[in-house]
């Protein structure tokens, strides 16, 4: 895994309306989304977005409905033209591309998974899966082997001959994922890919995605309006509100140090013990400990599992291990402190804002 930036978005603005360039001036001069709507009848879709998405990592973009998530992800493959800004993909500015070059990029280096699956109803599952290759001009023999392999991999072996409407929603989205994987593109764009599915199936699909990612290390841009999903999948979390980035970073970091009342609200309802991991709250090796160490935990363990280990005893300390090597300590005291929701700890900030 490299730590290279694959997709870099710089100063991106998108304004919907009849005269976006004029409206852009107003935004540069400080007009808000509401002012732009009320006074100039233009929709501020995205405003001054700067995000780096790393190769081989999952970047989750989260926000409420209308915050501009879909608009943002569609800029990456230029399904939407920006009003201003730059979009760099592997060192090239997508906005400089000719139509030909853009099509080439969409065919070979990006694939996309859609909220409502967007399969072709008149083609079999197998032919849907091989879409990217058939678009590139390969015939059925050319894509059949790959398509069957990936169908097998997402758990749809033997269903290739069916039509999409014969499958359940969860199965259709597996086809959507198999289609994206068969294209063999290093970048995968996923717009609310699991939002239309039932909770249980959704969890299955998240597990499937993580499992595949462990093996494939794609650069994934994933959109979600669900915090639990975002925290589960994200290596890098970007939170959008009204077309602006309010905070971005490592998800655990955002949980522990939200910098905006909006995010505090957002995270106030989640089960912190289940989401926070030991590595986020551990102390460095060599810290002074008042109590003895009673056991070892893994850096990736959730706080919930540590609480279970402790049996409720608040005076214990654990050694934190990664791959069998000690990397730090965690005390039950600091653990309990981390569980205090930030709405309480950041009460002052909240009342200031409101």
């Amino acid at each position: 895994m490299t730590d290279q930036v694959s997709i870099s978005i710089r100063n991106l603005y998108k304004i919907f309306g009849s005269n976006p360039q004029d409206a852009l001036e107003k935004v540069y001069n400080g007009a808000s989304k509401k002012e732009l709507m009320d006074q100039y009848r233009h929709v501020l879709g995205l405003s001054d977005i700067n995000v780096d998405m790393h190769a081989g990592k999952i970047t989750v973009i989260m926000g409420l409905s209308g915050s501009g998530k879909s608009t943002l992800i569609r800029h990456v493959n230029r399904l939407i033209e920006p009003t201003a800004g730059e979009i760099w993909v592997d060192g090239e500015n997508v906005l400089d591309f000719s139509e030909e070059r853009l099509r080439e990029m969409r065919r070979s280096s990006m694939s996309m998974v859609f909220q409502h699956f967007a399969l072709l109803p008149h083609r079999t599952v197998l032919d849907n899966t091989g879409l990217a290759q058939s678009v590139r001009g390969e015939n059925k023999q050319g894509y059949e082997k790959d398509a069957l392999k990936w169908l097998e991999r997402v758990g749809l072996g033997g269903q290739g001959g069916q039509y999409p409407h014969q499958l359940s929603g969860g199965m259709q989205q597996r086809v959507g994922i198999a289609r994206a994987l068969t294209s063999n593109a290093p970048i995968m764009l996923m717009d609310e890919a699991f939002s239309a599915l039932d909770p249980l199936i959704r969890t299955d699909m998240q597990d499937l995605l993580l499992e595949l990612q462990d093996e494939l290390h794609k650069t994934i841009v994933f959109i979600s309006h669900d915090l639990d999903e975002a925290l589960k999948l994200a290596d890098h979390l970007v939170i959008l509100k009204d077309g602006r980035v309010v905070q971005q970073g490592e998800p655990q970091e955002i949980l522990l140090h939200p910098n905006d009342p909006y995010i505090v609200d957002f995270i106030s309802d989640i089960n912190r013990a289940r989401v926070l991991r030991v590595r986020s709250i551990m102390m460095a090796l060599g810290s002074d400990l008042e109590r003895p160490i009673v056991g070892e935990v893994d850096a990736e363990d959730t706080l919930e599992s540590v609480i279970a280990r402790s049996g409720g005893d608040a005076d214990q300390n654990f050694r934190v291990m990664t791959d069998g090597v000690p990397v730090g300590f965690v005390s039950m005291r600091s653990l309990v402190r981390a569980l205090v929701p930030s709405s309480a700890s950041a009460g002052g900030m909240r009342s200031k804002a409101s």
Partner: protein
Amino acid sequence: MATYDFIFDGAGLRDWCGVKVSTGPVTMAELLAGAGKTESGSFWDKALALPFPSLDALNEACPSLARTRDLTKAVENGFLGAKDSLKVVLDPLTQPLSWLLEGALWLFDATPWWLMIPLILLLVHFASKSIQLVGFVASALLFLSFIDHYSFAMETLSIIFVCATLCVIFGVPIGIAMSRSDRMQRIMIPILDMLQTLPTFVYLIPLIFLFSVTEPKLYGIAIILYAIVPVVRLTDLGIRLVNKEVIEAADAFGMTKRQKLYSVQIPLALPNIMAGVNQTIMMSLAMVVIASLVSAPGLGVLVLRGIRNLELGVGLVAGLGIVLLAVILDRVTKAALARVNASNSVPRH
């Protein structure tokens, strides 16, 4: 003394109006007025008989104004004036239509019945995959042949075959162009509205002037203009209704416009396009009957004979034949449509 003299006297236009010298054609009203002129009665009688200030009534008071008869005459003259130059362009352009119609009529006529009927049944089976429907079509065709309407029915079918095919060949691309450009759609919709609302007879009037009544293209054009509307409209609608997300997927996977058209838009719009084809065929049938007025052969000729010669039985039996043809065409195209729908059911969200 005309009713509206006062307007022109009052406006000081009497000199411009001049004296009454009738040069144009005599109108029916003038003839009647000349027959029995009574210039008497009370104020109320006059008020009750007050004519609307139309061109004719105003012309009585002021001869310089045109009468409605002059207006229609001018339209006619204008049309006749343009006719020759129009003909130079339209005649060669539409000549292939005459050939096609003559060819199809000849072909349907030359094919012996014992070959034609099985061929039609085979086609029905191919389109509908329904044995019941094949049985129904077989009995309807045999019945028509039994009562000696076979050749008339074949003539009607051959005209529909040519015209409906041409409607699809021209209509689908026009519909596609409309779906791609809002501008094109804005231009086409009033034209389609006009074609659809003009009474069927009105189509024939300018065509009779342009082409000779003995040419098949005369009725061919009338049928095509009338029947092309639904297939154009429904192609446009069908393509515009294609799921936006599927279109996005096609773009996201790098399809060219052409790939998108042939592998996404047309297949997904096919149910709507087929519904348009069904209506186009039904409208061709309706028009081919009327077109017998301008020498289109087929069952319509018998209906016309029924009306002209008051041969009630001939007209009614031919009418029954038309109904049978209509049911056959409708059932077969609907069955084909249902098959397309079944293999193309888009999940609804």
